């Protein structure tokens, strides 16, 4: 790990003499529970007298709801109630950015799977059967499922007022600038699913005060609370949310799914109500990654310096708004890639269609753009006869660069270094002895320049692939090496960290320091959602380091403390980490005031300001020592602090100029693949990746995020797509929607840089999303190198490899 923490970044003194502070591989507080099956996920909730809910969903992507007959369902023994939109006492719609989505369909359904009614019954099977007895009469309406067609004049309107969700324009420099070398291309990204393993689930319990307690797996408790309260017609304080164990999120839990339904059923029946979506229902129960069509033109001079980037993108937002406006904003502001480009013209439009609503997924608009701009960089490199890495490093953004939005990058931007590191990363081990490795091992050479200057194939592999011991087709044994060609590809990308475009992005943390019998203990409480990434570990690490206390309890997240904002946009370690640090500093100030009294010092004595917390003692430079546990025994110190990052600002509506983002996270990938060019099968042999994380708060967890994010990018490159036909999902199951398995994921060489961001707590950078961006174009570039195919669409399908692209270039 490369550390380059800038002196002076840590402007205060950290506690010492404790284990498990920041920068260590501290263990997860929930690790043992999870490994023994004793951790309570939202699907494991149980309480006396609990009944079960089920949802009636539309089979049609666009239809008028003519009538809903609940009598047969209500007459079924064991069914307690059936609710429709008439039973929503408050606001009948919800939504993250604008409440445009009905809690239960009102007079129209706009996508397949839209909830029409909910049922509560004694057990899950009775609830399902009751739901099946709800008779809904539909009248089919005209469909619009193509986002480009949806934006054309005369298209059927998904919502009154037209199908344009948002149009973001970025304009910089000369729009008519000309270049010596010009390449253009049309790219397409399919609809990816977050595919968390723990499906939507939760339990609502009616409360004596007429309110409700909701135990739920989510990414942002307070935004759920506000939407639930609005639809129930209750004041927010009567809707109390507690985080139940979350089985992954990746963006899919940003939007409300069953939260309001559960509370409606609980308040109607007066019973605790539980719901758990099946995997099939889950595919209809949350938003997906936006499918996108992207047209790019890049111009460069003969030396490979970018002259202009023009891009025109259309994102399919599906039937409701969700977070489409922000996704479109990201695609636009990040759409030229991490490069210096003097002349930029980018247009990104989001469209309403009758496809499933699309919203947040790891990478959030940056993923789609990265696939296209990195594909373009390879195409440009080929046109110039340059190595793809050389072209990228020649144009790489650096600290001080200004983005196409005019925003100056005011912390490290090691784009070139990341690329150079993956370029020279160790090559995969060569096939085992006895295999006809021949050309394989040497083909790629020690520097990853296998591909030669133009990214050509490295030649037939003719042997078993690297460390996984597998060939394309895996254990299906479809080849013994004949027809297998190796390729190498590179890509780099960048993602904004935190909420952008002027959003008031803050978090709240409460830290309590107590002492009993000479023992010092702390607890930390926030509403920040642990979804698997390890925030609970980091919260405890910060408290240990700041206050020099070994024993730290992380309280369950709930709405009894102020909002922490969303667990998304790679932001929680930054923002809630910042809040926890600030709360600790407030606690420390109180400790110093108490110590001053004990030591007979003035509160502003410089000796105190420089005091250190070591092993539970406060040590003053002059030699004065106070046992901290004594300071708080019988009189605990508790501080709650709200903390926000630097403000951002909105984009100019015509030019897209503005300081829209807080921070950027950069990652680069090199992919090495073996392709069976006859069968169209790909095996990823090795991934090398490098990422700047500013400060690795927990290095093992950081590397885990990089592995996991990279893997989701591999999935998008090669297998993951919700396949739509006429507005209907064709593959809502794990049998038909494939995510990478253990044999699909190769060994990864991971390099972590720590170039501190002076504006961020501890210098850290959000980690989670950047690795998901460039892994996709790197893998596809490698497949292109092996096959010579254009491959303008992800996921790449076998027929694209064997027969060529089905999408015109």
């Amino acid at each position, binding site marked *: 790990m490369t550390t380059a923490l800038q002196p002076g970044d840590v402007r205060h003194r950290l506690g010492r003499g404790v284990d498990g502070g920041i920068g260590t*591989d501290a*263990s*997860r507080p*929930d*690790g*043992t*529970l*999870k*490994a*023994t*099956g*004793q951790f*309570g*996920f939202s*699907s*494991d909730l*149980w309480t006396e007298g609990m009944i079960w809910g089920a949802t009636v969903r539309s089979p049609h992507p666009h239809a008028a709801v003519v009538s809903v007959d609940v009598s047969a369902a209500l007459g079924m023994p064991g069914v307690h109630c059936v609710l429709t939109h008439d039973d929503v006492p408050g606001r009948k719609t919800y939504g993250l950015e604008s409440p445009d989505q009905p809690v239960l369909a009102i007079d129209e359904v706009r996508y397949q799977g839209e909830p029409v009614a909910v049922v509560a019954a004694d057990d*899950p*099977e009775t609830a399902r059967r009751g739901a099946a007895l709800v008779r809904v009469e539909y009248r089919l309406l005209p469909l619009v499922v193509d986002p480009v067609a949806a934006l054309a004049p005369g298209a059927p309107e998904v919502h009154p007022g037209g199908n344009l969700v948002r149009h973001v324009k970025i304009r910089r420099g000369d729009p008519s600038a000309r270049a010596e070398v010009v390449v253009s291309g049309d790219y397409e990204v399919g609809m990816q699913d*977050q*595919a*968390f*393993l*723990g*499906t939507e689930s939760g339990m609502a319990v009616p409360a004596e005060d007429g309110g409700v307690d909701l135990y739920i797996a989510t990414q942002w408790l307070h935004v759920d609370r506000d939407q639930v309260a609005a639809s129930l017609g209750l004041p927010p304080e009567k809707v109390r949310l507690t985080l139940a*164990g*979350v*089985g*992954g999120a*990746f963006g899919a839990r940003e939007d409300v799914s069953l939260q309001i339904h559960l509370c409606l059923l609980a308040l109607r029946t007066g019973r605790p109500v539980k719901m758990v979506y*099946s*995997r099939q229902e889950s595919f209809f129960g949350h938003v997906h990654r936006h499918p996108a069509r992207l047209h790019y033109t890049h111009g460069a001079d003969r030396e490979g310096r970018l002259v202009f980037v023009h891009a025109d993108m259309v994102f399919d937002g599906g039937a409701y708004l969700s977070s489409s406006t922000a996704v479109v904003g990201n695609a636009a502001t990040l759409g030229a890639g991490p490069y210096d480009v003097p002349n930029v013209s980018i247009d990104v439009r989001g469209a309403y269609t009758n496809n499933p609503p699309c919203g947040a997924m790891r990478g959030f608009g940056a993923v789609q753009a990265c696939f296209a701009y990195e594909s373009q960089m390879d195409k440009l490199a080929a046109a110039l006869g340059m190595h793809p890495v050389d072209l990228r490093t020649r144009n790489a953004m650096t600290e001080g660069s200004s983005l196409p939005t005019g925003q100056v990058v005011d912390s490290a931007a090691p784009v070139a270094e990341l690329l150079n590191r993956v370029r020279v990363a160790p090559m995969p081990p060569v096939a085992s002895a006895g295999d006809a490795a021949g050309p394989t091992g040497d083909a790629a050479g020690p520097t990853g320049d296998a591909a030669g200057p133009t990214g050509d194939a490295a030649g037939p592999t003719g042997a078993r692939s690297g460390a*996984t*011991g*597998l060939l394309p087709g895996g*254990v299906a044994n479809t080849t013994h090496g004949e027809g297998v060609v190796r390729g190498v590809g590179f890509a780099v990308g960048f993602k904004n960290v935190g909420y952008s475009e002027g959003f008031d992005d803050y978090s709240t943390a409460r830290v309590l320091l107590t002492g009993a019998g000479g023992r010092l203990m702390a607890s930390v409480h926030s509403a920040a959602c642990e*979804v*698997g*990434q*390890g925030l609970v570990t980091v919260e405890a690490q910060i408290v240990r380091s700041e206050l020099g206390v070994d024993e730290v309890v992380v309280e369950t997240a709930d709405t009894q403390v102020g909002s922490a904002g969303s667990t998304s946009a790679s932001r929680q370690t930054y923002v809630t980490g910042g809040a926890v640090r600030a709360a600790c500093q407030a606690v420390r100030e109180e400790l110093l005031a108490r110590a001053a009294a004990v030591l007979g010092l003035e509160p502003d004595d410089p000796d105190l300001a420089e005091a250190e917390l070591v092993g539970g003692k406060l040590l003053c430079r002059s030699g004065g020592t106070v046992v901290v546990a004594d300071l708080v025994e019988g009189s605990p110190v508790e501080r709650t602090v709200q903390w926000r990052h630097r403000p951002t600002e909105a984009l100019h509506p015509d030019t897209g100029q503005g300081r829209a983002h807080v921070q950027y996270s950069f990652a680069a990938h090199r992919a090495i693949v073996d392709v069976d060019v006859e069968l169209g099968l790909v095996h990823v042999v090795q991934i090398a990746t490098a990422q700047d994380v500013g400060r690795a708060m927990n290095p*093992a*967890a950081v*590397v*885990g995020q990089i*592995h*996991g*994010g*990279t*893997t*989701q990018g591999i999935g998008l490159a090669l297998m993951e797509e919700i396949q739509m036909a006429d507005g209907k999902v064709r593959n809502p*199951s*794990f*049998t038909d929607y494939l*995510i*990478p*398995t*253990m*044999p699909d*994921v190769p*060994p990864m060489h991971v390099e972590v840089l720590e170039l501190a961001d002076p504006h961020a707590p501890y210098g850290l950078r959000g980690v989670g999303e950047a690795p998901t961006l460039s892994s996709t174009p790197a893998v596809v570039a490698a497949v292109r190198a092996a096959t010579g195919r254009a491959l303008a669409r992800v996921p790449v399908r076998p027929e694209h490899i064997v027969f060529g692209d089905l999408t015109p270039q």
Partner: protein
Amino acid sequence: MQLQFTVNERPCHVDDVWEGESLLFVLRERVGLWGSKNACEQGECGSCTVLLDGAAVCSCLVAAGQVDGRHVVTVEGLGDRSDLHPVQQAFVDAGAVQCGFCTPGLVVATADLLRRNPSPSDAEIREALAGNLCRCTGYAQILDAVRLAAAVAR
């Protein structure tokens, strides 16, 4: 239907089981063993893996009636917080746990693998655990955990 079987070495009697119920449903909703997880209901994800008469199976694909008179071991039967199974310890130590939803199934599948093959190669681990999906980790630290558990056992 009534069922009589052994769970984690304890006799278990369950009444009023509907014929359509899976072993997974019985374990979670009737016996109160929530460690086995339901993530796909199709035998694709392995989150519900248990040992049935010593063989690793997806409990979502086993009809409840099939377990009458048989022996089931779930993740809870391998070890608990005060007495971790070496595989559970290895998953914690290797950082193989993120959201943890796949972990119980992977722990059972790994214990089964190491019983059959105490020193698996990486390729053998990958093949043996191919039926256990994880969405968080990218599998690298899971692979580490399996290697670690195998090394500790040796």
